[in-house]
């Protein structure tokens, strides 16, 4: 009896936890089909119209495009700079290296409100107009800290003897970097870039301080929440979720195929 219970308890609890995680997403998905009027809070009937016309509500798509642009730009800058810093931190010995290590994690450890306010104070001092540029700069700050931490772990795990082997096989430092170091770091760099993008796309607090009157998607939702979020926001949210799901599935299929191909090769 006891054993039977034990056998059930893990799947049941696991299932519940899973449901708990997915309920909000399911809610968003279902309500993206709601024939909403002014507010999308109660179910008023099924419709395709939100999906057919995702930009129907005012400013929804504008803010989305802004967020995507900011996310991409901040990610590219943060990933490039962060990777260089990570390489430098691991490969070169210099004074205060340990202190630098701590300083780099600081933007991640600082409360977002503090970081946002500090950046704002700086921009005001410099007399810069708040807008697209200041948002990108702010995002690069915390994204870069994140990229450094992620890529640095990867660089530390990289066997320096591989680069030596490349040099021994007539590869100059540049070729060594592009043929050996970079490909080996690539998975870490991609992971860092993806998380960077997600963090930038998601950020509300720091953005809110430094955006002036530029609308980002999180900002739009936050403001809309007081008046009632349009169902189009649910559509966009669901679409992002489905996109992410698709990426995961494709990755799984590819790794499965690769494994099969290798098994065949053996």
């Amino acid at each position, binding site marked *: 009896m006891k054993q039977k219970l034990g056998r059930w308890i893990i799947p049941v609890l696991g299932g519940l936890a899973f449901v708990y995680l997915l309920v909000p997403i399911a809610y968003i998905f279902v309500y993206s089909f709601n024939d909403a009027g002014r507010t999308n809070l109660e179910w008023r009937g099924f419709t395709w119209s939100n999906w057919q016309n995702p930009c129907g509500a005012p400013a929804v798509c504008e803010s989305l495009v802004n967020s995507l642009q900011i996310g991409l730009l901040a990610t590219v800058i943060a990933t490039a700079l962060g990777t260089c810093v990570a390489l430098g931190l691991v490969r070169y010995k210099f004074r205060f290296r340990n202190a630098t290590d701590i300083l780099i994690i600081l933007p991640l450890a600082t409360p977002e409100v503090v970081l946002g306010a500090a950046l704002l104070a700086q921009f005001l001092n410099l007399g810069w107009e708040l807008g697209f540029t200041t948002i990108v700069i702010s995002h690069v700050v915390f994204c870069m800290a994140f990229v450094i931490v992620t890529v640095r772990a990867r660089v530390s795990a990289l066997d320096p*003897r591989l680069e030596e082997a490349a040099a021994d*096989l007539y590869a100059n430092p540049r070729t060594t970097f592009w043929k050996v170091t970079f490909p080996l770091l690539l998975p870490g760099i991609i992971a860092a870039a993806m998380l960077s993008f997600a963090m930038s796309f998601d950020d509300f607090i720091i953005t809110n301080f430094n955006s002036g009157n530029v609308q980002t998607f999180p900002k739009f939702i936050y403001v809309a929440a007081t008046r009632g979020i349009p169902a189009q926001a649910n559509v966009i949210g669901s679409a992002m979720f489905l996109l992410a799901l698709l990426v995961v599935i494709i990755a799984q299929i590819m790794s499965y195929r690769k494994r099969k191909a290798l098994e065949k090769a053996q």
Partner: protein
Amino acid sequence: MDTETQTTRRRARGSSEGADLELTGICKRFAEFIAVDQLDLVVPSGKFFALLGPSGCGKSTTLRMIAGLEAPSEGSISIGGQDVTELPSHKRPVNTVFQSYALFPHMSVLENVAFGLKRKKDREAMPKAKAALEMVELGHLATRKPAQLSGGQQQRVALARALVNRPQVLLLDEPLGALDMKLRRQMQLELKTIQTEVGLTFIHVTHDQEEAMTMADVVAVMNEGRIEQLGPPRELYELPRTAFVANFLGKSNLMRGTVSGQEDQLLSVDVAGNRILLPAARAVATEGEIMVGIRPEKLQISATEDTTAGMNRLDGIVKDASFTGTTTEYLIEVEGIGLIGTFAQNRGQQPGEMGQRVFLSWDPVHTFGLRGSESELAGVEEA
């Protein structure tokens, strides 16, 4: 094969020949620690040179300096008469088979092997790489990633990856350590063939004495960052100049004694009351307290005393006799000297049993003399 055909064959292959390698006064310090100490070494072009020594004696460090992966703290390195001390690794005509293989994990086996040729913009990089893989019997695994190979297979890929470039100097850091006996012998033959045919200069680091002795033209025994002795394998074995070499390369019986006289180029040494003769030319020190050495296989063991004139003689009690099939190994306790090891070929006779008194004799020409200040245990544990 005469030299003329050899040269034509080399030309036909269109490959570079080996080059002289010269290390002058090389030192390598890591902070306070001295890894390599005042190393002078000349390896003539096309020679197979083996570096033998206990773990941590500086073999890999020496190779890394030749490859340009580590800058010497002092001294200079030249290849084919050209000073390469300041030349970066990728510009040196040297390739290494690394102790840790260091295969590129993101490339297939074939791409790994072709890497060096591609850097040199060799048009036939791929076919040459394939041929090199065939040579190490891994042609069928060309598309695999290194992680999907066994240790021995990885080692062979590392070997192919370096050999395919036909460098003037090839550095091998224990390249056969992970192979089983059969494959090891096969690879040894293969290496030796390539080396003689193409005339490359090989620097081969190994723990395996037999490997060093059978393959190398010149063997150097290294200890604590210094070369203890260097020479052709036979010379090194027959006439060790330090206790470390005597013990590290094969086994030796070392006995302390005092020189009591010299006549006709023969030293006579008093070893615990026994008179031992040895050619003065085979002794490093010829006065005062010295150490007398003799290899176990040079000793004759018998139940009756050998009375031939001019032989060295000792007698003692059999403490241990272990039968190994082709031979029986004996440990004999000699009064005032200690345990002496020897063995007897199994020819059906049995010269001694446990606890029995036996007689040892040997021809003085096999005896060698070392400095008395040395420890008779130097190099024993390491071997």
